[in-house]
């Protein structure tokens, strides 16, 4: 693949003895769009701050272009940051905020002006250059923060939830803009978000984090289709998460029935977690189904209906463009390639992963049938 640019090796961070990053290893390649995804407080910002130079890891090393940079101060790193809380300069107007980095780099005036206006144009703030920052809305301030970082054409741009304050439409537009900028200028993006859809649509690589641990690193497709454990499956998109037993290669049983699947490499009769995406559960006439159930509820969601079907021992969440009526008997069918079998982490030996798993406790979620709502 591409050249390796940034590498975190066994990076740990503790604040007052509380571990917030637990020996993470992460490689970021040149010109890559990498997204850190995870719930609030999982250590995304902390990871960015280590890369930006605002925190020194309590253990482990940070490499940039092969050089150890643990103690290189922020102003000597070829990295710019879009801060989570914008951090604009209150005593400057919009123009001077954006020009700040260029002035320090002693950029000649005509070029400086051109680049500042170009950057403001890019974030949709043309004509706002004379405004004071406190006269801007939150979303506008956020876009000034983006312009202020981008204008310097850094090798790496760290973006900490840069679109968090924007409305849906503007956010989609800015997602495109950012992706375009990233590809055109060829900047490496390290992007933080807790919006899984944003992560999946924009990234080359997604890093799913929880409680200071990296759960999985992969392409959006990999992460979505092959979640490594129940946490990832649950965090990335909605899913049916059900306990099962892997009898042998290609054969798993759950929901009181044996299913053909495509997974291999488990111990004989190993307990596993099984994930099935709601859009992969196909409904049929009751007699044609691998499973049978009663429709519990049907909710219109715009593009699809969200349907809950009670079948013995499990309540299935189904996304479908056709809707049965509540109370209907339906059959349910699963294709072997849509059944994702994964290790059940609570059976792991005590160790690194153990602490993240206490959280999971999938059982209650199934019982109340609301397991799709935790994004």
């Amino acid at each position, binding site marked *: 693949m591409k050249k390796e640019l940034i590498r975190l090796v066994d990076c740990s961070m503790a604040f007052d003895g509380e571990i917030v990053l637990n020996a993470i290893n992460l490689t970021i390649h040149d010109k890559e769009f990498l997204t850190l995804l995870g719930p609030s407080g999982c250590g995304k910002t902390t990871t960015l701050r280590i890369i930006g130079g605002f925190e020194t890891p309590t253990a482990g090393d940070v490499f940039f272009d092969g050089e150890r940079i643990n103690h290189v*101060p922020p*102003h000597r790193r070829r990295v*710019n940051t879009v801060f989570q809380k914008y*951090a604009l*300069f*209150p005593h400057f107007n919009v123009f001077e905020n954006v020009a*700040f*980095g260029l002035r*320090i780099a002693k950029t000649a005036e005509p070029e400086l002006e051109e680049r500042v206006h170009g950057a403001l144009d890019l974030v949709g703030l043309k004509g706002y250059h004379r405004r004071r920052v406190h006269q801007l809305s939150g979303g506008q301030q956020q876009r000034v923060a983006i312009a202020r*970082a981008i204008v310097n054409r850094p090798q790496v741009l760290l973006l900490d939830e840069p679109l968090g304050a924007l409305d849906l439409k503007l956010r989609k537009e800015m997602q495109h803009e950012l992706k375009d900028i990233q590809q055109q200028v060829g900047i490496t993006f390290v992007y933080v978000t807790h919006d899984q859809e944003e992560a999946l649509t924009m990234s080359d690589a997604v890093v799913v984090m929880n409680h200071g641990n990296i759960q999985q690193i992969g392409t959006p497709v990999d992460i979505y289709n092959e979640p490594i454990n129940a946490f990832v499956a649950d965090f990335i998109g909605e899913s049916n998460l059900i306990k099962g037993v892997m009898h042998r290669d290609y054969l798993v049983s759950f929901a009181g029935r044996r299913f053909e699947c495509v997974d291999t490499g488990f111990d004989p009769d190993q307990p596993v977690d099984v994930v099935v995406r709601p859009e992969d559960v196909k409904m049929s006439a009751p007699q044609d189904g691998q499973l049978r159930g009663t429709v519990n509820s049907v909710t219109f969601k715009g593009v699809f209906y969200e349907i809950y079907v009670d079948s013995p021992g499990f309540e299935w969440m189904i996304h479908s463009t056709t809707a049965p009526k509540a109370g209907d008997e339906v059959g349910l069918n699963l294709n072997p390639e849509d059944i994702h079998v994964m290790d059940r982490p609570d059976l792991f030996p005590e160790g690194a992963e153990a602490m993240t798993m206490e959280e999971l406790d999938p059982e209650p979620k199934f019982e109340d049938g609301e397991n799709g709502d935790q994004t």
Partner: protein
Amino acid sequence: MKRRGGWLAGPYVVWMVLFTVIPMMLVVYFAFTGEDGRLTAGNFARLLDYGAVFGRSLGLAAISTAVCLLIGYPLAYVLSRESEAVRKSAMLLIMLPMWVNMLLRTYAWMSILENTGLLNQLLSAVGLPTLRIINTSAAVAIGMVYNYLPFMILPVLTVMLKIDKPVIEAAQDLGGNQATVFKRVIFPLSLPGVLSGITMVFVPSVSTFIISRLLGGGKTLLLGDLIEMQFLGNTYNPHLGSSISLVMMIIVLISMALMNRFGEGEEEVVVL
């Protein structure tokens, strides 16, 4: 809303009228009347005789304010970067003398600066020539700086601590080293603190009389002494005293207004 809460301001209005407006009017009345109670501008004409006192007072106040700024600003900057524990104990040390009576503090300086005082004993002990400081303007300036320095440090430090840490980090992130970050972010953002610090040192310096009396030995007559003499001294003349007070107040107000203008101007310059 505004109207309904209006009565809450009542007690303060009464207070202000009783203790600010009425006394001010009395000062103005006395300043513009003679001993015979007739309207006159004669008091102000007599002020010309005291031009030297005005000059000395304003000059000394300006010097002590400048010295306070020179000492206080860097100290505040250093403290703002220290850990909270260090900063708190340093602040305690800075504030501690303020809890001692001002008269006592100034007497202490007398015994330090006296011709046979601690300073000169120290100097002669190490074989250096002794200094004559007591009863000079220098002694008065030292006394002012010592007494009013905390009033410079506190507002500057407060403003510096209020600067958002991420804003400083953003400046570093954009390539600013420590000097640049100071010049382009911390200094401009600390100016409001500097302005109030200057006000809080300059105003009491211009009107002090204890410091000049004790450390200046009556030779360094300041406005404060002059005014005090008109009310309590044997030259009892409240009309002259009031006119001096009035003029002093106007001078202070004008210099504060000028400075605020300058402060705003500064900000605009930085903003472009």
